[in-house]
């Protein structure tokens, strides 16, 4: 993502007031583009759909789409960290030709996983096969999209990606409405899936342009995964941790309702939470624009200091600057986001009413807004841990998050309406604390890992040059 950040940086440097505003706006758009495009399409679809609102078909549509998003994100989470790490390694080793092939192989693996889970889930849902097929197609298209986004994070030009989402959303909206009018639930779902498939195709084309065409052959992916199993754990647990509270709300009899067989939803929880997450876009924007690029700068500068043969004092200064940028970055995110969050907390009743959410959702919304803020902060911690190559720490954090969110949500059921969402909030807070502690710990011990645990440097002294030459002469 740093690639895009630097493009934004240039925008920032344009001077005056318009530069920063433009950059910030662009950052928010970038961070949220995919979401906003899809949400907008869905919202409009809901408003204009031929399906009667609140009908079983409409509820099934929403439930299927949210399930497709949820589970595709979890499945992609399993491979996303591997993908990012693989990408970083290829770029570092200048093995750019491996990237397209690696992407293809990861995509096929992801789709295999998704196909299996889709079939299993479909067996428990008594809906027409055509509907399930369309939902399955949407699920797989989304999975491929998230993976493609992970690879395209190396790209410097965000434009094509945003365009892909906009086009896909637009087409999905049109085809969805058309399909809904002509073929009901199946048509609407299939139309929306087509739009998402278009997004995926455009992203695939971007990948082909950026990385070239894939070859057939081994690029050491499975050895790579075997060498870094913690990445799978981290990605999977963190993604699942992100959604576990919603899954539990769907499953729990008091809060969830059956849509069709295993297909469930929780109207009380889902929409409020969804909107709550939309409110932290400014935080994401700040992260992308400033925090990540600043940290990236200090991070590179730290290694440059070492390579420039500075003494330990100089190295520690560079590290202090890096640690400082972490704290300053967090502070900045909070400074930007906190006023917005506070305003939303206060204005929650009015907002929920305006959005047409049920009155019961207000407390969920409030807790969700706070929780989302802490979530963004601990997401930043996770990204930093991965920057610092602290894979074990990242895995610990992801597992802790999953456990905390799961247990917290389960505990919150007992408290009644007021505590719904509190479990997630506490989990986010705890995870943030853990993540921050891990980042500080790793920074404290950074030199140990950089020097002692980086494999063997080649000996620069060749005493045995004459030995070798004599051997060769004797040959």
């Amino acid at each position, binding site marked *: 993502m740093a690639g895009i950040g630097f493009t934004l940086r240039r925008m920032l440097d344009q001077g005056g007031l318009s530069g920063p505003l433009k950059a910030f706006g662009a950052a928010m758009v970038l961070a949220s583009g995919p979401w906003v495009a899809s949400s907008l399409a869905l919202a409009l679809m809901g408003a204009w759909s031929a399906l009667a609102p609140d009908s079983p078909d409409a509820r099934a549509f929403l439930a299927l789409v949210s399930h497709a998003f949820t589970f595709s994100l979890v499945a992609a989470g399993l491979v996303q960290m591997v993908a990012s790490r693989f990408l970083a390694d290829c770029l570092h080793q200048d093995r750019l030709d491996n990237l397209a092939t690696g992407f293809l192989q990861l995509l096929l693996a992801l789709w295999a996983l998704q196909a299996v889970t889709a079939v299993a889930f479909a067996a428990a849902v008594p809906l027409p096969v055509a509907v399930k097929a369309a939902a399955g197609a949407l699920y797989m298209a989304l999975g491929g999209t998230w993976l493609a986004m992970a690879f395209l994070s190396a790209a410097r030009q965000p434009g094509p990606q945003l365009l892909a989402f906009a086009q896909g959303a637009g087409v999905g909206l049109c085809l969805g409405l058309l399909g809904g009018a002509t073929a009901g639930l199946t048509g609407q779902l299939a139309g929306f899936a087509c739009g998402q498939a278009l997004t995926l195709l455009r992203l695939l084309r971007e990948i082909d342009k950026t990385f070239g065409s894939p070859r057939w052959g081994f690029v050491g992916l499975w050895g790579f995964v075997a060498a870094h199993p913690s990445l799978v754990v981290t990605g999977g647990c963190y993604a699942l941790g992100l959604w576990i509270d919603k899954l539990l709300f769907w499953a729990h009899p008091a809060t969830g309702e059956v849509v069709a067989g295993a297909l469930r939803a929780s109207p009380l929880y889902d929409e409020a939470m969804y909107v709550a997450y939309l409110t932290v876009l400014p935080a994401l924007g700040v992260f992308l624009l400033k925090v990540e690029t600043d940290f990236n700068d200090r991070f590179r500068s730290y290694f440059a200091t*070492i*390579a*420039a*043969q*500075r*003494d*330990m*004092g100089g*190295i520690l200064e560079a590290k202090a600057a890096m640690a400082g940028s972490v704290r300053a970055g967090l502070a900045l995110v909070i400074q930007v986001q906190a006023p917005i969050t506070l305003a939303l907390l206060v204005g929650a009743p009015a907002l929920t009413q305006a959005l047409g959410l049920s009155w019961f959702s207000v407390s969920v919304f409030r807790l969700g807004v706070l929780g989302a803020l802490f979530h963004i902060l601990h997401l930043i911690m996770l990204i930093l841990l991965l920057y610092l190559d602290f894979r074990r720490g990242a895995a610990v954090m992801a597992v802790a998050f999953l456990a905390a969110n799961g247990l917290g949500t389960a505990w919150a059921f007992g408290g009644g309406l007021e505590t719904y969402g509190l479990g997630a909030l506490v989990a986010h807070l705890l995870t943030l604390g853990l993540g921050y502690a891990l980042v500080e710990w790793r920074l404290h011990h950074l*030199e*140990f890992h950089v*020097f*002692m*645990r980086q*494999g*063997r*440097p080649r*000996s*620069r*002294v*060749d*005493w*045995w040059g004459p*030995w*070798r*030459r*004599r*051997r060769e*002469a*004797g040959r």
Partner: protein
Amino acid sequence: MRADVCLVLEGSYPYVTGGVSSWVHQLITGLPEVRFALLTLVPGGDGPLVDRYPVPPNVVARQDVALFEEAPVAGREPSRALMRAVETLHEAPMPARCPIMKTVTGLLAGPRQAASGLLEARASWALLKALYARRDRRVSFIDYFWTWRATHGPVLRLLDAPLPDAPVYHALSTGYAGFVASVAKTRLGVGLALTEHGLYTHERAIDIFQSSGLFKPTEPGAAPQERFFKTWWRDMFAFLGRLTYDSCDVIVTLHEPNRRMQVAAGAPDDRLVVVPNGIDPARYVPQRTPRDWSARPFRVGLIGRVVPIKDIKTFIRSVQIAAAEVPLEAYVLGPTDEDPAYHAECLALTRALGLEETVRFLGKVDVLAWLPTLDLNVLTSVSESQPLVILEAAAAGVPSVATDVGACRELLGGRTGEDAALGPSGLVTPVVSPEATARAIVDLARDPLRHRAMADAGIRRVERFYRQSAVLDYYRGLYARLAEPAAAGVR
């Protein structure tokens, strides 16, 4: 099978051809009743190693240790006692280090190999940082770290190396070979002998001095740091040398100048003995044809590899000067492929001086077959130990003109009083002095009687003092004495 003697070899027999390797081969074949084990130290990462000599059947065990191999290291965190001892070792002044090193060696002799683990242990990192902060905190840290790894890596690997089972260890150099031999002494209580051909520590010091690869500054003007790192390397080898001397029961060298340098490097005088190399004079008897160059040009030969240390260029220049006074044919007899750039420079110099007809480079030849052809053996090396070629020439009745390096003076003028009484068997010149070398060549070319006297003196000298059989007898006896339990103080 248990061996009688374990030879500790670094960068020589049996994987490299050369003076030391040939000597070792002759030792092993000359003592067929002694069972030898070979502990060979190699750099590592070179692929399969090929024997350059037919290893005799009395070599009953072989062990290769790779010094710079990047093998994965498994080890638990070192004990606090060990780290305290290591810290004391690094803070102690040089003379006090040997006994502390022995303590450390003992502490590292556990069933679970802990030495290599120090390369990645947290306690090592803490100590490294502490030493850096205490003493050296202004130097480049990354170079400090790499130098630590490069200097300590081989030593730690050697501390983990399996040691062949033998009651006597015989190291053929100080440095890493001497180090692992001293480890064997500390851990197994073996009898320990050292034979130094060249002086390893001294040679490394020259390499270090000449090298530019130990510290490459990213900014200009970093000379003080270069000195720091070069000193570190030099001190490390000096320490290994001192440790070896301290651990050995007997230290053998080839000639007096070396013995003096060993004393200067900390070797205890009472354990030093000079045992020069020898040859088998009988092999050269057929080559002792009387030379008569009255009707033909005077033939001079330089028998040696075409490398800078042999200073072939001085030889070429001296031939140019001498050829102006007497008719000459000059031959360079030795392999030319070790340093192709230098060989090209020598050929260019020959051409530039117009000596293509006079000086011929014949490559690697059979020395024995060529000696009868030569009237005079010339040596212009800038550094030598005990060049066997002078002995071989002397045994074949060929006097030598040699530079005053290594053992040359005593080979040509006599080492002991008895030896000197035989008369000179050649002339000694300063190094890099084409005029002096040319003067010597011309003097002998014009004085056949003096030439004859020197040839005779040379034959007597070799047969009396440089017999290979005497060397073998010495070592046979040494091994027997060292094998006895109370082996300290034997000569």
